[in-house]
C-alpha cells in the first residue's frame, strides 16, 4: 500500500501556510526587546520595512526556483558553484536552520522555566520539546503539513485571542510621536527583523512540491498573502507592546510580550495570569516551527548525500542540537549567535541568491551561445 503521508505536491496557499507557520514561531516572544531597544520609536516601521524587504528576498528565491523546475537548491547549487562551492552553499543553507533551531530551543527553555516551571532545569524542558519535535520531524511531509495546517487554524487563533486581551491596558499615547523617528535606526532595525521573518528560506526546498501546480504569479501572490499576515502579526505584537509598556520600559524587560499579557486583569472573571494561557498556545506554535526546521535539515542532508530517507539525519541532528542549545546558556553568547545568524541569513538572502540568479542567467546565456 502506498504511503499516503509521503506528499508529492501541495498548493501555493499550502506553501504560504507553511512559510507563515515556520516564520512566526518563537520570535514573537524572543525578538521584541532587542528590536525595540535598537530602534526605539518607529519599531513598527522597521517591522513593515522588514516585511517588504524579506518578501523581496522570497520573490528572488521563487524566480530562482522557476529556473530549475522540480529541483531544490541542493540539486542545482553544485551545478552553479561547482562541487565544493555548492557544498558550501548547501552547508550555509542548512546552517541557517540549525542556528535558528538551537536559539529557539534555548529561548523556549528559558521562558518556560522562568514563567511556568521554575524548579525544572531548562535542559529538561528542552529535552522534552526536542523529543516531540523529533518525533514529528521523523514523519513524512504529508503528516507535517497536516500538523502545520491544523496549528495554523487552532493555535494561532488562541494565541491571537489571548494576545488581544492586552488591548485592555493599551494607551495609544505611548506610541506617540509617530514622527520624527530615527531613520537610520529604523532601516537598521528592518534588517534586524530577519530573526522574525526567517524561515522563508524553506521555499527553496519546497518549491518542487508546488511548482508544477502553480504559476510564478500565483506563488508570488500566495507568498504576498503569507508575508502580509506575518507583518500584521508582528506589527500587532510590537504596537501592543509599546502601547502597553512604552518604549523605555520594553527595553528593560527580557520578554516584554509576556509582561504585557501578565498585566492583564479581566474584570469580573476568575481568569488570572494570562501569560500561562499565552505560553500554552505558544508552545505548539514553536513546536510547529521546530518540527519544520528539523525536517528541512534532514531533507537537505538526505538530498545532498543522495539517501532515500531523511530520518537518520534527523536523528543524527538531535544530540548536536541539544548540546548546541545547552552551550548557548549565557545571554552574551546568545546575543552574539543571534547577531551572527542574522548576518549569515541576510548574506544568504541578499548575497547568495542574487549570485545564484546571475550565475544561472550567465550559464544559460553561455549554453545558448554554444548552440549558435
Amino acid at each position, binding site marked *: 500500500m502506498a504511503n499516503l503521508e509521503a506528499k508529492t505536491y501541495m498548493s501555493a496557499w499550502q506553501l504560504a501556510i507553511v512559510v507563515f507557520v515556520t516564520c512566526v514561531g518563537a520570535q514573537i516572544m524572543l525578538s521584541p526587546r532587542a528590536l525595540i531597544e535598537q530602534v526605539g520609536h518607529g519599531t513598527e516601521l522597521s517591522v513593515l520595512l522588514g516585511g517588504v524587504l524579506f518578501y523581496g528576498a522570497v520573490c528572488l528565491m521563487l524566480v530562482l526556483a522557476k529556473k530549475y523546475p522540480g529541483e531544490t537548491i541542493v540539486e542545482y547549487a553544485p551545478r552553479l558553484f561547482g562541487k565544493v562551492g555548492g557544498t558550501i552553499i548547501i552547508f550555509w543553507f542548512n546552517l541557517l536552520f540549525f542556528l535558528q533551531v538551537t536559539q529557539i530551543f534555548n529561548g523556549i527553555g528559558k521562558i518556560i522555566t522562568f514563567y511556568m516551571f521554575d524548579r525544572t532545569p531548562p535542559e529538561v524542558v528542552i529535552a522534552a520539546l526536542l*523529543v516531540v519535535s523529533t518525533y514529528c520531524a521523523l514523519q513524512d511531509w504529508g503528516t507535517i503539513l497536516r500538523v502545520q495546517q491544523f496549528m495554523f487554524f487552532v493555535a494561532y487563533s488562541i494565541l491571537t485571542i489571548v494576545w488581544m486581551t492586552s488591548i485592555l491596558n493599551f494607551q495609544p*499615547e505611548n506610541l506617540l*510621536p509617530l514622527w520624527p523617528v530615527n531613520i537610520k535606526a529604523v532601516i537598521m532595525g528592518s534588517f534586524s527583523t530577519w530573526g522574525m521573518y526567517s524561515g522563508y528560506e524553506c521555499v527553496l526546498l519546497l518549491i518542487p512540491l508546488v511548482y508544477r501546480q502553480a504559476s510564478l504569479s500565483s506563488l508570488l501572490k500566495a507568498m504576498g498573502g503569507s508575508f502580509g499576515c506575518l507583518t500584521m502579526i508582528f506589527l500587532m505584537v510590537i504596537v501592543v507592546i509599546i502601547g502597553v509598556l512604552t518604549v*523605555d*520600559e520594553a527595553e528593560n524587560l527580557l520578554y516584554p510580550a509576556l509582561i504585557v499579557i501578565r*498585566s492583564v*486583569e479581566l474584570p469580573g472573571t476568575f481568569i488570572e495570569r494570562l501569560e500561562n494561557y499565552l505560553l500554552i498556545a505558544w508552545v505548539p506554535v514553536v513546536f510547529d516551527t521546530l518540527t519544520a526546521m528539523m525536517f528541512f535539515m534532514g531533507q537537505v542532508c538526505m538530498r545532498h548525500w543522495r539517501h532515500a530517507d531523511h530520518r537518520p539525519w534527523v536523528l543524527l541532528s538531535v544530540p548536536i542540537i541539544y548540546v548546541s542549545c545547552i552551550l548557548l546558556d549565557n545571554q552574551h553568547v546568545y546575543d552574539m549567535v543571534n547577531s551572527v545568524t542574522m548576518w549569515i541569513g541576510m548574506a544568504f538572502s541578499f548575497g547568495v541568491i542574487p549570485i545564484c540568479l546571475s550565475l544561472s542567467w550567465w550559464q544559460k546565456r553561455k549554453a545558448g551561445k554554444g548552440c549558435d
Partner: protein
Amino acid sequence: MSCMVLVCLCLLIAGCWDRRELQDRNFVLAVAVDTADAGDKPGLEPEQGEKVKKTETFLQPHGTKRYRLSLQVLKFTPGGGEKEESKTYVISNTGESFFEMVRDMLGQSSKSLWFEHLQVIIISEAVLKQAGLNEILDFFKRDSEMRSRIKLYVTPGTARDLLEYNPPTKEAGGIYLADLIRLHTRNSHVAGSRTDLGYTVQYLDTRSNILLPRIEIADKVVKLGGSAVFKKDQFIGYVDEYAIAGLKFMYGTEQSAVIVIESPEKPGQIMTFELFRHDTRLIPHVEDGTIYFTLDINMYGNLDEIQGDIGGENTLDPQYLHKLEAAFAEEIKRNILYADNVFKKELRVDCVSKFAGKMKAYEPDTWELVKDQWDEIYPTIPLVISVNVSIQKIGSHK
C-alpha cells in the same frame, strides 16, 4: 532499547520538579516594609520585644539591618475557631536583602512561602526617607511569582500595623486592604489609577514621577486617602484629598465624582453634583517658543443632594440649573487650580510626568529642546482651564 528510552524519558520529563501541593504552600497576602528599628511585634514589653527581634532575625555578615520585612500569611485552618480569630498571621524579619529575609523566614514557616497571591505591598514613610522606591521594589519586580496588579500603598506610620489589622468583614487582611482601592474610580479622594506594581515599575523605568495611595491606621480604623508623591523614585511628601480630586479632574482619570458647593443664591445651602461622564482634554501648545497647556472639560451628571433651606428652589427651572452649572464649573476650576498650585509651586513636580508625556507625544520637537530642563520649566508653565458642567437629571424630587 526503545522501551528503556521511553521509561527514562517518562521519569525525567514528567514535570515532577515543580510539583508543590496546595496544602504545602503558605500564601503570602500582604507585605509590609518598615525600617529595621520599627514594626516590632505589637503588645510586647520592651525587653520581650528585644528578645523577639533577636530571635526572628539572622546573622548578617555584610551591610547593616536596614529593613524590616513583614509578611501576612493566610491560615489554612478550617473554620469554627474563635469568632475574633484572624484569618491571617504575620511573620517578620530584619535585614538588608529582601530575598535573604524571605528565605530566612522559612525558619518561621512550616511550608514554602508563596507570593503568587500577594495582594498588597505597604511601605512606610520612614523607609522611603532612607531608600529610593526603585531599590525597595527591585526584588518584587524581578521575581516571577509577583503579579503586575499588586497594589502599592505608602503609610506615614508603621506598615506592619496594617498587616496585623483584622478587618471587620472577617476576610483576609491582605485581600481587604487591596480591595480598598478597587472603587477608586468612584472616590475622587483616592488616586488609584495606574498605581500598582506593574505601572509603578513602568514609571520607574521611564524615569517618571510617581504617585502612590496613602493609607493610614488609627486604632481600628484603616483609611485610604491622599497620596504620596515621588520625584523619580525619591519620596518628597504627601498631597491631600482635595489636591488628588483636582488632579483627577485635570488628568481625566475619574469615572465618577461628587462635587459639593455652597449655593450661589443662598449662603449656607449645600448643593451636591454627581459626575457621571466627562470629556477631558489636556493639550500642550507652543507659540513663539512659549509653552502653555489648555484643559477643556465637559462634565455631565446629576444634582444629587441639597442641604440647608431647601424650600423655594425650582430645580426644573432651566435658569436656576444654569446658575448651578456655572457654580459647579467654578468649583471644579478652583479644585484644579488648587491641585495645579500644589504640584507646581509647592512640590514642583510634574505628577506622573503627565505634562512631560503630553509634550513628548504632541510637541516632540519642542520636547527635545526642553527635556533636560523640564523640572525647572514645568512650574512656570501656564494652564488655561475651561470647564462646562451639564446637569442632566435632578433625581426623583424637584
